[in-house]
């Protein structure tokens, strides 16, 4: 499956392991990713706070660029970027006046023809039974899937009906042999962009997430958003400081979990870049052969 890729700023920085694991598993899943040349930052939360026009112009510029390169469909692994791109597409599609205003600022034409996909729906499409048969390992662990806010809200950008209890990530984990557990924090906010300015809020909100996951007996929290990963992983010490509790549960990107089931090494998947060690192993599907000469009861 050939698809455009909007990496987003974090792919080169704080979410480097997300990029590494995605590029590592893509060829094995038949995914050919074409990075949109000359992409700019989507504006994330900051443009959104500072100026409405800016918050629309930055994503529109990306979409316009993709159109110029004849990219019909693009996957956006970062949930925040996905939300900005999808929201912008909806807004410009709903109001001709806004569309004209924004495209005038861009000095680029914009038709709104590129489809914006999040990582979960693309993975659900490519992780077919045939592809799964080729997987050498499985990921036999109890996990909880954390969707966060931006993959499921507002309703106009959500690609799932069940926004209060989404299932796409859980479905993906089941397919690779994991046991996704029922838990309460699937779509609760982690603290978002307050990582630097109000770290205590991140501490409290992310702390709730870690606590629930740990209580339910999960061995890892699976995420698909660099900001959530950063809050839950990089900010672990701050969380422990705010809550006064210790948490050891690792945070894995969905692409890393799939990579483990594909038999890739931790380094290939960037697991060493985490702040909280992720010592989870895959399990080989192949049974070890008995030594020659030994009879085995059938």
């Amino acid at each position, binding site marked *: 499956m050939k698809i455009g890729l909007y990496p987003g700023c974090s792919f080169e920085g704080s979410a480097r392991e997300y990029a590494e694991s995605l590029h590592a598993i893509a060829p094995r899943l038949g995914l050919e990713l074409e990075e949109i040349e000359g992409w700019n930052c989507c504006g994330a939360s900051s443009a959104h706070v500072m100026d409405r026009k800016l918050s629309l112009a930055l994503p529109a510029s990306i979409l316009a660029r993709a159109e110029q390169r004849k990219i019909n469909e693009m996957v956006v692994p970062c949930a925040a970027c996905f939300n900005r791109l999808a929201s912008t597409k909806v807004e410009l599609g709903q109001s001709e006046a806004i569309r004209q205003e924004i495209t005038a600022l861009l000095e680029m034409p914009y038709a709104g023809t590129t489809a914006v996909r999040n990582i979960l729906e693309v993975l659900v499409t490519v992780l077919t039974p045939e592809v799964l048969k080729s997987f050498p390992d499985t990921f036999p662990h109890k996990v909880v899937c954390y969707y966060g806010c931006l993959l499921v809200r507002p309703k106009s950008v959500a690609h799932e009906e*069940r*926004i*209060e*209890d989404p299932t796409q990530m859980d479905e993906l984990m089941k397919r690779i042999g994991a046991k996704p557990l029922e838990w*309460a924090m699937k779509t609760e906010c982690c603290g978002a962009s307050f990582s630097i300015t109000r770290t205590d809020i991140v501490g409290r909100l992310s702390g709730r997430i870690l606590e*629930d996951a740990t*209580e339910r007996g999960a061995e890892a929290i699976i995420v698909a958003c660099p900001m959530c990963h950063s809050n839950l992983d990089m900010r672990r010490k701050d969380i422990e400081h705010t809550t006064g509790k210790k948490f050891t549960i690792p945070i894995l990107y969905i692409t890393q979990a799939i990579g483990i089931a594909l038999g890739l090494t931790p380094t290939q998947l960037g697991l060493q870049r985490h702040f909280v060690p992720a010592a989870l192993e895959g399990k080989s599907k192949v049974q070890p052969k008995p030594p020659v000469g030994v009879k085995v009861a059938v």
Partner: protein
Amino acid sequence: MSRVGVFVCHCGENIGSTVDCEKVSKTCASIPGVACSVDYKYMCSDPGQNLIRAAIKENNLTGVVVAACSPRMHEPTFRKTCAAVGLNPYMCEMANLREQCSWVHTGSDATTEKAIDLVSMMVEKVKRNKPLYSIKVPVTRTALVIGGGIAGIQAALDIANAGQKVVLVEREASIGGHMSQLSETFPTLDCSQCILTPRMVEVAQSPNITLYTYSEVESLTGFIGNFTARIRKKARGIDEKACTGCGDCSTACPIKKNPSEFNVGLGMRSAIYIPFPQAVPNKPVIDRARCSYYLRGKCQFCVTKCPANAIRLEQEDELIDISVGSVVVSTGFNVVDTSFFPEYGYGKYKDVISGLQFERLLSASGPTLGEVKRPSDGQVPKKIVFIACAGSRDPAKGIEYCSKICCMYTAKHAMLYKHKVHDGDAYVFYMDIRAGGKGYDEFVRRAIEEDDVNYVRGRVSRVYERKGKLVVRGVDTLLGAQQMEIEADMVVLATAGVANAGAEELAQKLHVSYDSHHFFAEAHPKLRPVETNTAGIFLAGACQSPKDIPDSVSQASAAASKVLGMFSSDELTREPVIAVVNRSAPPVYSTCVGCFMCQSACPFQAIERDEIKARDGRVIKTVAKVNPGLCQGCGTCVAFCRSKSIDLQGFSNEQVYAEVMELMS
């Protein structure tokens, strides 16, 4: 030659202070065709009416124009006056000088001129009036009541006890409806079954009521006084006459794990079952979708065990045609279930239940025999959160209306819970308290003041499960929107009332209007709450909108009185202001070309096809014919008719044109 009398009323100061009534009557005296013209202070009073009667006799009047208030006010009055002295009442018309003149203008010459115009227009019309005679329609004195809940039961009993015949059709295997599922009723905390079951038995035993349960109305044709209903009596699989209701069949049935509809999924029943112990009729029914015999051809334990040999596995549906004169629709309502709420768990938490399910827990005949227990583990909950307005008043969920009964039953639930579990804690999250009935507000205050139910003003954002408890995230808006988190053992949602399943299909079968929520439409929200726009079909109860038991019973009795009014004579009298398709001598027979645009335009299905036949039976022409029993005289067909073949009696084309031409001259 016309001899029209003009009678101008001052209506005290109402018309007199703005319009120069004397001038109007003097001017109109010189209109050609007017034989006499007078004015008087109060035309509708006794002396006023006497004035009219005397004038009719003295002047041999052929028509009367009363220039006064609105016809809606006094047309019947003046028409009776005319009829009393032998003038056909439809030769009397009113010119509205009040609502359409004096009440909307200030006193001036122009106003008086307008009044003169209005009267002269009406004179021109009356000159072209023809005498009309009321239409008589025969009446079959049997009522069909659809739906056997409390409203249907009340209507059936009222009609039957007045000596008329009733056929009561109920879709479920027993009558009783939702009221039979309730434990106690507000505001008196009467035991619901105790007050309902005597009525149910009365219905079964009444000689005037024919009861068809496990039956549905397949079709309804005809018109007021003369309907034909086809009833489908679904196959119970039982010979009702032979069956004694002993229940051995249910005990013997090996397929026991079917969610009980009566217990709203909280308990189980067998494949052959009696819905509840007090069911009327107290006979079982076989659920063919689950019975081994129908699925796999096996079992038949019930047949073996039945001491009365009453099981009839090969029984088929029966179609019964009946003639009825009127219909009362009382099909009731339902409540949404917990899966309707994404933020409260999509229905996956066993201890998040609906108000109706909580009723079953409270009920002595329920799955827990009246003890409040958690469906998940059977423990007694020590803390219950009741959430009011769950789905109601919620445009985001598609239900913008208030379901009316939830504030009251939530208070009731909280009180009954506290009565049963003395050390329990009850919280009610509400937005407003709607307790407008007699004794209703006092009832809610009792819950707050005597039973210590914690009422918190605010809504609940989310409910989720954690370590066997339900975490409720609410808010107290009276404390400045302070967040509240409660760990409850059970959450009861006061779920929204909605139209019953199949309401739309039934409304279409009966040709009854319904709204976007599939509640049946009344003819006028204030003044005709139990009538529909379809003549002869009445409404009662929650099928019209969610309501409580007193209101349902009131409406049922009101509908019954309408039916009894209809049945009070052998024939029904209807106003002759109806449309008529012209007929003339052969070879024309009628200018109607048979396009039947009128038939598709008619909102009341009052136009039929009439075949004009020669003596040998050959059809010469098919023309439109108006059914005088159904036509409401709206005139839509007249506007549609391209060949001007249909006209409205009392408002004919000629009459209306004459009025317009008079105004223009």
